[in-house]
Every structure is written in structure tokens, then in C-alpha cells.
């Protein structure tokens, strides 16, 4: 299987005043296309930081990250924004939907950055909302939806541009058991039926069970 994500000797640290806090140390990882990878580890182990680096919303201090052949560490802010729009679908723990937009409009947001016509955008949004089982909730605002439904809208938003990779940061962290199961089943389905490459950070062992591969991070190092 062709590697879709290649992480080569990545180091990342943060500065707190004059203090340098190392978060990731010499991480190297290859994720093949169509993989469903779960990153696990205790709080502060660097899982979210690694996910952010893969998604191109943060940059390493050292090392290279290739996604589908593109060295994302070499891209400038503007190019990186365009790259994310095209290649990354991000699912957040707290859904992060825009409260003044309906489910339909939230999902449509990433498509406004493309050259698709209004009709084409509608077709994409309706298709993806039906796929996540919310075809009948398109015109509801986030506050009118349950947590599980909100997360499914967020998944639809991440999916609507048909990105190269889906990254999910604790996607079930804020959900009850039933909703969490629904969301995980949906992610597994996207991986199996639509061959979506998914990198998921989770604390939850039941969530990790849905993944093909589970990697553990401990104090910034991959085990």
C-alpha cells in the first residue's frame, strides 16, 4: 500500500516564557493509504500536537512531514491554508460548528473556497449530510442538534471536499456512549467503504478498537 503520510524525525517543542518544553522527540511514522490509525497516550504525551503537525495547522522545529508527496513543513501560511482546504478534513473533540450557520451551511463552508457552482455545492452538501444520516436535519442550527448529531455534521464538513486524509482529535471525547458508538461506526464505515485514510487521537480504548493500527505516544516518543 502506498504511504500517504510520512513523518521523518520530527521534533517539536513549545516555549513558555524562557522555558523550552519538548513535546515530540524524533518521531518517525509512515501511514499507508486507506489506513485507520489511532494515536493513544496519556495527557501531555504529544498526540494532539502530532495530529496538528500532520494536518498542517502547526509546524515542527525539526524534521519533515509528507502528505501524499507534499512536504507540508516547507509550505508558507497562504499555501498551507490552500493545501489544508484541499487535502485535510479536521474533526474536533467539541465539534466546533459555527453557531450562526445551519448544518447545511456549516458543511458548505469548505466548499465556498472552491470554484464549485451553487448547484454543485448543494449536491455535495446534501450527499454528505445524507451519508452521515442527517439528511432530515440540514436546516437545523447546531443548538437544535444533539452532541452526536453535531459531531456527525462536523464529520460531514470534514468530508465534503473529499480530502486526502481525515484527522480526528478525540472525536468521541464529548459524547455519551451511544453517540460515541454511532460516530465511531461512521468513521469505520468511511474508512472501509470509501477508503478514507483516518488518523484519530483518542483516550478511549473502545474507539481505538475500531482502528486498524494503534500507536502509543509516551512523553513525546512513539512506542
Amino acid at each position, binding site marked *: 500500500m502506498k504511504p500517504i503520510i510520512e513523518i521523518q524525525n520530527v521534533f517539536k517543542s513549545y516555549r513558555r516564557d524562557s522555558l523550552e518544553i519538548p513535546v515530540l522527540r524524533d518521531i518517525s511514522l509512515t501511514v499507508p493509504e486507506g489506513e485507520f490509525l489511532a494515536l493513544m497516550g496519556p495527557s501531555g504525551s504529544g498526540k494532539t500536537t502530532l495530529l*496538528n503537525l500532520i*494536518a498542517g495547522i502547526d509546524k515542527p522545529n525539526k524534521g519533515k512531514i509528507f502528505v501524499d508527496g507534499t512536504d507540508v513543513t516547507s509550505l508558507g501560511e497562504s499555501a498551507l*491554508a*490552500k493545501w489544508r482546504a484541499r487535502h485535510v478534513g479536521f474533526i474536533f473533540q467539541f465539534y*466546533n460548528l*459555527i*453557531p*450562526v*450557520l445551519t448544518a447545511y451551511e456549516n458543511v458548505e463552508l*469548505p466548499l465556498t473556497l472552491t470554484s464549485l457552482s451553487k448547484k454543485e455545492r448543494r449536491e455535495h452538501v446534501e450527499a454528505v449530510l445524507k451519508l452521515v444520516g442527517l439528511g432530515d436535519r440540514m436546516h437545523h442550527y447546531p443548538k437544535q442538534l444533539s452532541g452526536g448529531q453535531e459531531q456527525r455534521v462536523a464529520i460531514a464538513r470534514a468530508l465534503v471536499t473529499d480530502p486526502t486524509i481525515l484527522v480526528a482529535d478525540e472525536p468521541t471525547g464529548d459524547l455519551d456512549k451511544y453517540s460515541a458508538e454511532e460516530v465511531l461506526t461512521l468513521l469505520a464505515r468511511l474508512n472501509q467503504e470509501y477508503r478514507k485514510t483516518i488518523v484519530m487521537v483518542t483516550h478511549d480504548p473502545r474507539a481505538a478498537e475500531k482502528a486498524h493500527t494503534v500507536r502509543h505516544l509516551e512523553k513525546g516518543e512513539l512506542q
Partner: protein
Amino acid sequence: MRVLKFMLRNTLRHKLRTALTILGISIAVVAFTFLRTVVTAWYAGVEASSPNRLITRNAVSFIFPLPLSYRDKIAQIPGVETVSFMNWFQGVYIDKNQFFPRMAVDAETALRIYPEFLVPQDQLEAFRKERNACVVGADLAQQYNFKLGDVIPIEGDIYPGRWEFVVRAIYQPRDKTVDGTQMWFHWQYLDERLKQEAPARAGYVGWYIIRISNPTDAARISEEVDALFKNSRAETKTETEAAFQESFIQGTSLIIQLLNFLSFVIIGIIMLVLGNTMIMSARERTKEYAVLKTIGFSGGTLAAIIAGESIMISIIGAVVGLFLAYPVVDLFALMVPKSWFPIFFIEPITIVLAGMSALLVGVIAAFFPVQRAVRTSIVDGLRFVG
């Protein structure tokens, strides 16, 4: 879903806050427009001045007269078309609070030299024929319900005695910038009575109005007029009509400057009100901006969304304010005697200035929120707890 729709939804996110901000801007725009209108009204005489009219007055002071004999000498200067003259009559009509300009004018030339005072031909002839006839402005006629044939009794002060003038003509101001509250009567009527009652004061005029063929000759003709009467017992000072009008308001220039300053202080207040709203809004949405950036929105698009919202609020405030300003200005004009501010209306330039200021305020108020949204990293934005 377009950016504009998104901006509009954001604007309506906190309806009360947005409404109060818009109300604040509207009130400030009303105050700004009102103050600018007062300033403009103050300068109305200067603005309405004609470039081809010169005023010759006594060099010592405006209150000292000039001999009538100067008229023919001035008329000889090349480039002079017509020479007319006036006296400030003043007097009391009903009581001292009923103020309007009352002037003794040369009936033959005055209305020719002031073509912005439109008088029907038959009324003009009636005015010229009768020695104690007068012409009044349409606004004045409306204010005191003067009709043709009415007699206006005036108790003289500068020129003592009881005077009566018959309304024989009513002039219409050519446009909104022309004073419609004046009353003119025959200088000859004044002079004849002075010859009988105060002969030493007869044969003098207050100032000369010189119509010149070419405004570019104004400096030369002014110099030539003043040179003619140099070392005479009544030396002259000749200047353009605009300069002459300006000399009247010079004494109040500090007040005008203060009003001008206040109008711009108001703009500063709008900026603070809107800036505060925008900073609060942008701070609350720090996480959302980080999400938008994660999705792929560029810093420029974010800046447009924030600035657009700020501009939208300020423009709505300005439009509401301007709509409110008209009745406020009209009400003020109704409440004060017309003769206080004969020309009192919102000029197009004031509307443009208010609109431009609102636009500028919208852009500046968005500056810090935009800077914050663009500069905050996605990671910090996503971690933000408001």
C-alpha cells in the same frame, strides 16, 4: 452561503449589543451632521459670495460711511460693470427680537447686481416706481405673512424716527444657498429724509458693491479703487465679497473651530463604541476563526469577514443617523427664527463626510480584531477559552 450572509449572521449574533452600537453610531451621526450644518450655515454668506462682486468699505471700519460721490469715480475703472451701494438700516420691527436684515439699497442697480434674488418683472417695476417701496425675501414674507401692498412699520435706531415701507415685491432665492430673509428699500428714501432731519448724514452710503466683468481682475481693480481715495478724508478698503463676508464671522471663528473640533470628537467616540463592540465580538469568536483557518480560510478572508461586519454596522448606523438628522435639522430650523440661520440645510458634502467617516470608522474599528484574528495561531485559537 456567501461571505456577506455570514457577516450578516455574525452581526445579528448579539442583537441587543448590535442594536445599541447602531443606536450609538446613529446618535453620533445626528450630532455630527447637526454640528456640521451649523458650521456650514455660519459660512453660508461666504459660500454664496459671487467671485465677480467686490465690496468697498471705509478703511477705518465698516461702521463709517463713504461719500456717494465715490460711485462715479469707481465706475470709471476699466473692468467695472456696475456700481451699487447699500446702507445697513437696522431699526426695530415689533420688538428687538424680530431680527432680519433691513437694508437701504440703490433701487436701480441692487437687483441687477444680485441676480440670485429673483423678482417678477412687474413687481420689480412697482418697487422701482415708489419711493417708500420695499422688496422682501420669500422666507421673510412667509415668516411674517407679508403680502404685496402691506405696510411694514419700523422704528429707526441708527436712523431715528418712524419709517413705513410698502411691500411691492417679493424675491425668491435662486437656490437653497441664497438668503431669503432680507428686506431692501430705496436708499433715496433714506437720503431724502436725512437731508431734512440730519443733513450732515445725508449723501453717504454704507458700502459699495462693484460688479466686475472678470473675476481675475479682482486684485487689480481693488487696488485701483483704494488708490483713487488714498489720502482722502474717507479712505477705502476694497476686497472680494467672500473676504468681506468672512470678516463678519471672524469674531466667532473660535466658536466655529470649537464646533468643528467637537464634530470630529464625535467621530472619535463612534470609533471607540464600534471598536469596543468589534473587539468583544472578535474575542468571543477566537476559536471560530481558528476553525475557519483550519478549514482553509486565509487571513485575508478572515480580515474581510471581520472588517465587513464592522463596516456593515457603521454604515447601518450612518444611514439610520442620516435619516434621523433630517427631521432634527428641520425641527431646529423651525424652532429658531429664520433670520438667525437664513440658510440652514444639510449640504450634500455633509452627507458625504458623514458616510466617509462611518466607512473610515468601520475600517479602523476592525483593525485590532483583524490583527488579533490573523496573528493568533490556529493551535492557540483552538485552545482559547473565552
